[in-house]
Structure formats: structure tokens, C-alpha cells
């Protein structure tokens, strides 16, 4: 399976590169498309929920409310990024949510809503030390956006022994 997977991966990535190059040529003849803010569709929402739970581990209670909070804070973190970077995050979510790229690049067999925690953890660990820098940087983006968004929220501060800024001036 590893051979098949690797050759597909190669073809897939080269395909992506070829498309990007074609896009580049196209764009030199046409003014660039206006950039849009990041938006999450249903499958993207399920992906982010599953990945947040694995990324945050025991920091996040396994409740629908906490999951929604994690998703919301990640979206807030993304919303502050330049639109070109939001586009990159959108591309990352496209890779994560398209069935074929999800299976091949993350190794998660199930749809995100049914994804098992162990599979998601294995995916994060494999991207974290992956030889493809594209996937490594995908891991770092998820790491920073999810963890940063979560711990920016003051409801998490008592749990880490942070009293927050002095009340008089905040």
C-alpha cells in the first residue's frame, strides 16, 4: 500500500504544482482574482472539530459546547490573517476535506464526523515530522491557529494558572 500511496501522492502533488504553474501563467494575463475571507463548509467544520479535539487533548472537554468554542476561536484567529494567508488556510481545508486527499494525505479513513481520535492523532504526528515541508507547515498552521485561539480565551486561563491582566486597566 505504501508504494501505491507514495506514487499517488507524487502524482497528486505534481498535479497540484502543474495546476499552480498554469494558474501563474493565467494570472499574468489576467488581473488576480479578488481574495475572499476564509469560510468553513459542513465537512470543513467537522474536520476542524475533530482536529481541535486531538490538538487540544485533555485541555478541551469532550462536549459539543467546548468543541464549538474551539472551532469558533480558531475561526477568530484565521479572521485576523491577511486574505492571501486565509486563502492558503482555505486550500489546506480543501485538501483535508476532499475524500481522496483526506485518505491519502492524512490517512484518516472515515469522514471527519466519524473520525476516530487515534487516527487523527496519528495524522497530526505524521504531518508534524513529515519529509514534505508542505505538510509540516500544514501541521504548524493547525497547531498555532487551534492552540492559539483556545488559550487566547480567558475562560482557559484559570486552568493554566494565569490570573490575566490587572483588572483596573483591562
Amino acid at each position, binding site marked *: 500500500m505504501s508504494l501505491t500511496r507514495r506514487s499517488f501522492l507524487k502524482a497528486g502533488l505534481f498535479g497540484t504544482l502543474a495546476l499552480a504553474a498554469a494558474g501563474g501563467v493565467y494570472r499574468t494575463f489576467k488581473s488576480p482574482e479578488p481574495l475572499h475571507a476564509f469560510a468553513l463548509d459542513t465537512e470543513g467544520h467537522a474536520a476542524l472539530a475533530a482536529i481541535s479535539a486531538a490538538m487540544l487533548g485533555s485541555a478541551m472537554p469532550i462536549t459539543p459546547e467546548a468543541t464549538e468554542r474551539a472551532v469558533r476561536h480558531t475561526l477568530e484567529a484565521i479572521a485576523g490573517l491577511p486574505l492571501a494567508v486565509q486563502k492558503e488556510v482555505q486550500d489546506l481545508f480543501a485538501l483535508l476535506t476532499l475524500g481522496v486527499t483526506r485518505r491519502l494525505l492524512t490517512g484518516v479513513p472515515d469522514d471527519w464526523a466519524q473520525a476516530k481520535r487515534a487516527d487523527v492523532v496519528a495524522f497530526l504526528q505524521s504531518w508534524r515530522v513529515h519529509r514534505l515541508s508542505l505538510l509540516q*507547515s500544514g501541521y504548524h498552521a493547525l497547531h498555532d491557529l487551534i492552540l492559539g485561539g483556545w*488559550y*487566547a480565551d480567558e475562560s482557559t486561563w484559570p486552568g493554566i494558572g494565569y490570573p490575566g491582566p490587572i483588572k483596573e486597566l483591562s
Partner: protein
Amino acid sequence: MSSPISDPIQAGLASGWHVIDAAQLTADLTVEADVVIVGTGAGGGVTAEILALAGLKVVLIEEGELKSSKDFKMREAQAYPTLYQESAARKTKDKAINILQGRTVGGSTAVNWTSSFRTPPGTLRFWQEHYGLKDYSVETMAPWFEMMEQRLNVIQWETAPNENNDLLKVGAQKLNIPVAAIRRNVKGCWNLGYCGMGCPTNAKQSMLVTTIPSALSKGATLVTHARAERLQIEHDAVQALHCTALDASGLRATGKTIRINARHYVVSGGAINSPALLMRSKAPDPHHLLGKRTFLHPTVVSAALYAQPVNGYAGAPQTIYSDHFMDTQAIDGAVGYKLEVPPLHPLLFATTMAGFGDQHAEMMKQFANTHVILALLRDGFHEDSQGGAVHLRDDGYPVLDYVMSDAMWDGVKRALLTMAEIQFAAGAKTVYPLHEQASGYADWSAARQAIDALPYQPNLTRVVSAHVMGGCPMSDDIKLGLVASNGQYHGVDNLSVHDGSLFPTSIGANPQLSIYGLTARLASGLAQKLTGKPAPRPVAA
């Protein structure tokens, strides 16, 4: 709630300062000026005050927003998107280095940690020897540093260091590594520890509360939410500056434009942004120097767990440093590094700590007992440390391609060893070198063995930067520099560069005071040239 802190920005606005928020423009705008300055950080702020005091009509262009102490609530979720470039998540091209740069009125000076060092003598000597900057000696720079130290209240910090800084001192001294106190540009500091989110008490003497209010009080105009797109260069002179208005979020162009017609144009957008503006403007670059040799002081991080609380969020963030590993070797030899500590706050701490899941959650629970040391590598001196190159994307936005060389990785490894040894000497229970393949180590020999064996590669080793320098190097030799030693751009009559992009190497110390001293000198020369009179000397209000 009304604040007990008086707000000089709100008072100035009430007194009739000329401030235009480009986000609010309903039509295109043209402004006439003697001098337009792009950027309101260290270089732009110092230049604006000196030129305005000289009686010149000054216009300041800022991409960020005008914020003030009433907005500085010490919360990362608000501070990073509003005060930093790219929401404090600007990355190198390979995404492997996170870069902190300010984007607000006051630039990085509004969010820096107040560490004030004169340019090290060895750095000036290197510039004199290799970049023909003969007039840049310790002696000739001293009066400019003195002037800006007085202007910005750079003082010895007499308060005891917080525990985070003290642990660096304790550990280093046990190993006979000399440390010293960091001077700070503060007046009446409350010792809160939130310098990186905008000073809520106006104690930090950033450009936001010093030179910019001074320039505005002398009649300067400030345009915010305006991105400088292009200098129109024709017949060896700049004819106009063209800017794009951004909306209130700072993310989108509104479609309105601003044109500034001036006698003289000063670029002070900081490294990365200044070279990018000059590239978009097709400024002359016959020797292909523009944007090259951009330096970062690549910084690596070692966290450690202690039995006692460290509370790294509280107290002046940087007060102790060691230059031992810069002073004990040749400046162009094995890459040297400066040791300091960072302030610790939940968002930046959570994103900086490696790993995820339960293991990350456990480290977060120990947040209050965690100590962190930084090692800032001195890039640009070793022949295998040539820095990075700024490129323009399709949309004209800059990205820095910075690849760590073998010489730099060698410095990274030595720095991680040094920091772990210091932390154990200070009593650490566990040390975590920040690397994706490292874990926590319970003693020095285990840590040493692991650090020796780690692979040093991008994305595996955590590397960050808060000091971007270079890309528009200064030299009177046009083969070595784009900008003459008086700040004048070679080959364009009415164009100057006044910021940290001028540095031909990194500084080897937190760069703010180097930028203040250098640009005070350049701006004084420019004021004299434009007015025919001796330059004024700015003094603190």
C-alpha cells in the same frame, strides 16, 4: 470604565492634530508636502519629529491604525491582529520562521519589549571595515545615541528582575557566565509585563507617545490605514507616492487612493516592507542588492519547568542579558548568540511550545512554573550567513525567503546546549529544547545527549524572529550599498531610506536604539540640507 491613565493621543486629536483615517475616505485624495515619510516606527518617528521641528511640512503614511493607551487592554486576541504585521503570524517563505513586526502607529516600537542597546562596537567596526562606513565609529555615533537616550528616557532599570529574568542570571552566574542589566526606554513604568500588547500606561517611550505627538503638534499630517504601493520614479527623481486606502480591518483595499506630492521622500517601512516598496517602484538596483541580505537574529527557545512559580507574564519582560557567547569569539567566526528571556503569555506560549494533545495540555498546566530563555543568533557576519531575500508575490505583497545555513544551525545547537545547561544550573526540574523531536529532559547529561543528536532542519526546530534588519544596505560604495552613508538612495535625487533595512549586517542586539541613533543622524543631515539651517535637537516634553 474611565481610565486613570491620561491619553496623549486622545488629547492631541482633541487639540486638532491633522490625522486622516484613509479607511473613511469617500474620494481619492491628493496631499502636498515638503517631505513624506512612509512608516511610523523607529525610523519614521525619529525622522518626522526632527523634520517637523525644522519647520518642514511633513506627511506620515502608516498602514496600521492609530491606537492609544485606551485601546491597550493587555489581551493577545485583540493585540496581535490589530498591532502586528499579519496578526503576529508573518512567516518566512518556507513558513519555518515566525516573524514579529509591528503594524500600527509607532510601528514595532509600540509593541517591543523596551530593550535598549547601543550598536555594539564590533558591529560598527565590521561596517567600517567591510562597508566603507568610515564615519560610523563608536565615537561619531555616541552623540546621536546620547541624544535619543535622553529624548526617549533610556534608563538603568533599578527594579529587581522578575523571576523569569532572575533565573537566567542565577543559572548563568553558577556557570561563571557574565550577565548584565538591560536598559529600558520607560518613564514611570508600572512593571506590568505587557509591553508586547501596547503599553497601557504610556510608560514606554515608544514613537507613539514621543516623536509622533511632537511632530503632529508641529503641524505634521498622519494618514493611517494607507499602504504605500509605489514611488513614481522618473528622470532620477521621485515624482509622487501612490498609496492604497485600507478598510478598518486593515485586510482589504477600499478602492480609494492617496497621492502625495513632496519635495523629498523618506522610506521607513522597516526591513521587508521598505525593500518591497522600492521593488514595486522599480528603484535603481544595478548590483542586485535590493531585499538581499535581510537578517532576522534567528531566535531559538528553551523552556524549563521549576518547582517554584516563575510567573513569566508579570514584570518588565527583558531586564537581564548575556553577551558572553558573542564576546568570546571572532565576530565572523562561529555564529555568536545573545541570551535574553521573553515575556510569557498564554497565546504566544501555547503556539511556541512544541507538540499537541495531552502532552501539550500538561505543559500548559505548568505555564506559571515555566521559564523560557531565548538565544538570538547574530547573522550576517560569518561568510556562510548571507541572510534572506525579499521577493514580491503576484499581488505585490512581500515574502522573505530565509534559509538557515549550516553555520547558523551550528549556532542553534550550541545555543540550545547553553540554555539547557543554564536552566539546570538554576534548578530546573525538566528542560524542553523547542524542537519537534525533542522531549522534556530531567538532567543535563540527558539533555546534552539529546540536543547533540537532534536533526537541525526547518520546521523541526522552532525558530522565531522579532528583529528584521537589512535589505537596503548602506554604503558609499554602490557595489556594496543602495543607500549612501547620509541616507540618500544612490541614483534618485530626492529619496532617502531611514530604518533598520539600512543595516549591512544584523546588529547583534535588540535593534531599536541602533535605529533611533542612526536615523536621528540621517534626519538631522536631511533637515539641514532641505532648510539650509542647522538641524533642531529634539528634547523630551
